[in-house]
């Protein structure tokens, strides 16, 4: 956090100064480790074993927050009899289909769940391909809360509590030591610190970033910490929670208002081919009529979106123009698309402030794919490698590509900087902050707002006379934004459209005002309220020193300016703060409403004693002590009865490429990970496969304070380039001795994809780990550099080393861990490089099938 979110880390240091203990669990020693109380180096890719060990420690020692767990989680819910745990099936849950490498999750449901109540992410998962999990958005999977059977004593063998206990029984400190390479004493120190610092009076926070998401089982990493936080009563409480630290100024915003294939604004799913034939059937996949919570109102959010986009052309008679939306089938994620590019199936590509030739996994495949395009539009501040691969990419040097033979037409359009346009960024805590335009952009530089507005106008112009059905969505689109004298559309007008309007043309104050009858509009329901009272709330800048510690008058956080989600859980079931020290919101009996420091994330006047009448659904079905208001049963999930494609509870699997055999199960890797067995995506053999010893080391990637992702915003700046001029690899002194690597010399790092070179940094920041009786060496690689001719500094790209193997739920690549070899000296040049890598492949006996066997039980 100190390394990549430095200014945010000041608050950790403030907490430390007030007595908080800071523990850094990371394969890498960073600026965070340097100031932490404890650094826990662990083997990259072993975190679930660690987290599972913490869960076991909590349960075995009865250190969970009992009242919280009983009242606010699904611990007491009974799981169906058909469910079989991974402990009993060698690392697989019930419902696994070997041929398809997917689960039918029907058997994971709660006991007595009626047919169909498993809902989306349910039985369809196996057949409808891999897009299901993430398409649930924050809506989450549906369950029918009315049929749930409970055992409040938590003793029933099929209660979630007992299922969890059995599931993690073998995640002992000894097992953690064997799998993660973390000495038992150090592991127990973490367990003791975390549990001692949780309960009524204290809370513990877990912070993660892409070190947890870049895995073939990444979603389950985060589920692991969610289980811990729920057991310890740390969710929805001040100083608690799980903080996802996001890497880009508005990466949260670009998820909320998604430039993502599987969701629409506000986490509404994109409709799916075959499944969502009508608006009604589409809505039914979002809101199960039986369920609790605010997703039951999905129709209002969805109709309001259609009205924002198609205005009066969206009518009740045409199903609110639902058919104007294209349908997805399976995975259309960026990696799937790049493979299709390589197969010549994609003509055109827009790159908007993104540099995949350096920043995406298997960067080689990215460049080779772009060389297959007919046209490419790059919009950026600088001449990034993704715009110049056709003349100075590494494949030109190896002779795999020849400039004169690449038929791609490339348009480079310079972009406006943040100071040259107005608009909002949504930062990592869901807070929107407006930035004001300071100056005009120079020369041909333009904002995306202006470019896309203009492109839309030109496209509509071209198709103006079209009679074709397919062109209606474009021609009927609401696209009239006021522009200034220079042609720049008003970002303010766009934000108003996002906020939404009521029947009288008034800006909405809350998504609760949205109606399913077409009388309201709103481009992103969770952002409704950003223009409450006709004021751009995101532009509020009341000094922090003049307001409370929650700082509600700076910017605006979705939803409805709540700064902490699910904060109803900061009070006990009766609505009283768990402790005065940790008070956030509470029920005020006299005023008969929820009050507190933050905006309560609960219906304002629903008393804690409220119990829903028989047959209630939606928000009305939420009891006064159901704090998780977006969940279909109002509870925090220790066990996920549906919604995930790779199991209801996290299981330790080895990374897709690992020199280590899974010590816990026959099943080696995530049995449902998304693999691509292709000649251009070869994998290293893992432990247990012949040739694994050719790649005996673990490599991992990371960032440095002075650079930003693929370098597009940092390697062109002399200041930042001077601070971190050159690509390097970090190795331990022991590893350096074993391989003859010299400090400040060169090393070549090799995988089945390619070989790259880096300066060697021999440092005891990297520690060799004892794993399963063997010593495991890890190589650390910052991934900011790329090969090209335009940046102030360049170098080989660490992402060239990685192949594609994805988390099945979210299609994110496993680029935080792979196996590799490392040898002293520079890599071969030109075609020699290809021969060098080919030699490794043949020594390891690599074929297209290598490493792609998902079922290994």
């Amino acid at each position, binding site marked *: 956090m100190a390394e990549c*979110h*430095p200014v*945010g880390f*000041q608050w950790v240091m403030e907490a430390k100064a007030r007595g908080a203990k800071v523990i850094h669990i990371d394969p890498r020693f960073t600026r965070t480790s340097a100031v932490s109380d404890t650094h826990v180096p662990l083997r990259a890719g072993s975190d679930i074993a660690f987290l599972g060990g913490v869960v076991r420690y909590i349960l075995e020692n009865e250190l969970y927050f009992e009242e919280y767990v009983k009242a606010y989680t699904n611990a007491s819910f009974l799981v169906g009899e058909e469910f079989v745990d991974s402990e009993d099936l060698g690392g697989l849950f019930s419902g696994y289909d070997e041929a398809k490498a997917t689960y039918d999750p029907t058997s994971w449901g709660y006991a007595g769940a009626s047919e169909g109540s498993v809902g989306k992410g349910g039985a369809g998962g196996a057949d409808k391909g891999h897009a299901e999990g993430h398409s649930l958005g924050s809506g989450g999977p549906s369950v029918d809360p009315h049929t749930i059977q409970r055992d409040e004593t938590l003793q029933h063998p099929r209660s979630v509590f007992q299922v969890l206990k059995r599931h993690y029984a073998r995640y002992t400190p000894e097992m953690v030591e064997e799998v993660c390479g973390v000495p038992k004493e150090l592991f127990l120190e973490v367990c003791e610190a975390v549990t001692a610092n949780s309960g009524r009076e204290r809370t513990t926070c877990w912070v993660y970033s892409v070190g947890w998401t870049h895995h073939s089982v990444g979603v389950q990493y985060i589920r692991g910490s969610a289980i811990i936080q729920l057991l310890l009563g740390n969710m929805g409480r001040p100083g608690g929670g799980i903080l996802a*630290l996001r*890497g880009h*100024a*508005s*990466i949260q915003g*670009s998820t*909320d*208002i*998604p*430039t*993502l294939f599987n969701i629409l*604004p506000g986490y509404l799913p994109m409709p799916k*081919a075959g499944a969502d*034939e009508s608006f009604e059937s589409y809505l039914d996949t979002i809101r199960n009529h039986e369920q609790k919570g605010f997703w039951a109102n999905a129709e209002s959010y969805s109709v309001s979106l259609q009205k924002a986009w198609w205005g009066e052309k969206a009518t009740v008679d045409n199903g609110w123009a639902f058919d*104007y939306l*294209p*349908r*997805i089938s399976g995975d*259309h994620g*960026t*990696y799937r698309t790049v493979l299709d*590019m390589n197969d010549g199936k*994609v*003509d*055109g590509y827009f*790159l908007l402030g993104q540099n995949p030739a350096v920043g995406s996994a298997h960067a080689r495949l990215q460049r080779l794919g772009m060389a297959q395009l007919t046209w490419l539009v790059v919009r950026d501040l600088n*001449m990034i490698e993704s715009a110049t691969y056709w003349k100075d990419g590494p494949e030109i040097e190896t002779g795999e590509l020849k400039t004169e033979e*690449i038929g*791609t*037409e490339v348009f*480079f359009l*310079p972009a406006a900087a943040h*100071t040259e346009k107005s*608009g909002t*960024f949504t*930062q990592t805590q869901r*807070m929107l902050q407006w*930035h*004001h*335009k300071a100056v*005009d952009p120079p020369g041909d530089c*333009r904002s*995306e707002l202006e470019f*896309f507005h203009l492109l839309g106008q*030109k*496209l509509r112009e071209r198709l103006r006379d079209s009679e074709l059905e*397919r062109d209606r969505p474009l021609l009927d689109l609401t696209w009239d934004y006021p522009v200034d004298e220079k042609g720049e559309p008003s*970002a303010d007008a*766009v*934000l108003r459209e996002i906020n939404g309007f009521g029947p009288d043309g008034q800006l909405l104050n809350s998504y609760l005002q949205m109606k399913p009858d077409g009388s309201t509009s709103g481009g992103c329901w969770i952002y409704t309220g950003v223009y409450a009272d006709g004021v751009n709330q995101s532009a509020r800048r009341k*000094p*922090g020193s003049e307001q409370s510690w929650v700082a509600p008058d700076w910017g605006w956080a979705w939803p409805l300016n709540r700064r902490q989600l699910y904060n109803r859980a900061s009070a006990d079931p009766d609505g009283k703060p768990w402790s005065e020290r940790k008070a956030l919101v509470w029920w005020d009996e006299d005023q008969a409403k929820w009050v507190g420091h933050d905006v309560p994330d609960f219906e304002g006047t629903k008393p804690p004693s409220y119990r829903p009448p028989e047959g209630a659904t939606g928000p009305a079905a939420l009891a006064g002590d159901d704090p998780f208001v977006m969940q279909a049963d109002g509870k925090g999930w220790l066990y996920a009865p549906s919604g995930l494609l790779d199991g209801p509870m996290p299981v330790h699997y080895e990374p897709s490429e690992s020199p280590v055999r899974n010590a816990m199960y026959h099943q080696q890797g995530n049995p449902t990970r998304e693999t691509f067995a292709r000649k251009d995506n070869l994998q290293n053999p893992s432990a247990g496969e012949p040739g694994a010893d050719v790649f005996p080391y673990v490599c991992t990637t990371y960032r440095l*304070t002075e650079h930003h992702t693929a370098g597009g915003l940092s390697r*062109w*700046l002399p*200041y930042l380039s001077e601070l971190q001029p050159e690509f390097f690899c970090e190795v331990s002194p022991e590893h350096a001795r074993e391989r003859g690597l010299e400090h400040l010399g060169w090393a070549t790092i090799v995988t089945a994809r390619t070989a790259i070179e880096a300066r060697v940094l021999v440092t005891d920041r990297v520690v060799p780990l004892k794993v399963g009786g063997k010593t495991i060496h890890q190589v650390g690689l910052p991934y900011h550099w790329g090969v090209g001719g335009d940046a102030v500094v360049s170098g080989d790209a660490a992402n060239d080393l990685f192949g594609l193997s994805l988390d099945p739920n979210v299609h994110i690549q496993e680029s935080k861990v792979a196996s590799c070899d490392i040898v002293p000296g520079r890599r071969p040049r030109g075609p020699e490089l290809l021969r060098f890598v080919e030699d490794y492949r043949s020594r390891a006996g690599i074929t297209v099938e290598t490493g792609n066997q998902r079922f290994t039980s």
Partner: protein
Amino acid sequence: MDLGKTFLSWPVVRQLTGDDPLGRGKAAQSARTAALQPRTKTADRVVDSICPYCAVGCGQKVYVKDEKVVQIEGDPNSPVSRGRLCPKGSASEQLVNSPGRVTKVRYRRPYGTDWEDLDLDVAIDMIADRVVETRNRTWQDLDDQGHKVRRTLGFASLGGATLDNEENYLIKKLFTALGAVQIENQARI
């Protein structure tokens, strides 16, 4: 008599007679240095902004003189950052005024070996033509099982995490209306 021209103004005299005996402060200051003013003082205006790098979202004050950004500082009022910026945020003035920043459209024709000039408006026209052509040629009304899909897989887009919400909104809205579904950004990566 102009004191500034006499030996009394020599740094060594100032050092020995003033309150800076080590000569590390005022005693060593030249008249030129004394006359300098920070760019933050001479700016025509100050504009509220947010750091464009990571998602901490530090507050920035952008100092403008003669319609140029001359300095970017942390915003002390921000309850997030309290005036601080990390090396990236501190360098963002150079991001805006970077000597390497490209400000003209560049065009590489198919099989071309170098960049060429191109008028911005012509470029957007050409891009619009490419989109229409690709979309028409790759349009799918139905998938191979006869389900309606109403889409094109002929072009794709990547990017958004560094952009404004309003920009992402127009991108998603326009592309979706065109039937393009392969719209992605760093959040997947």
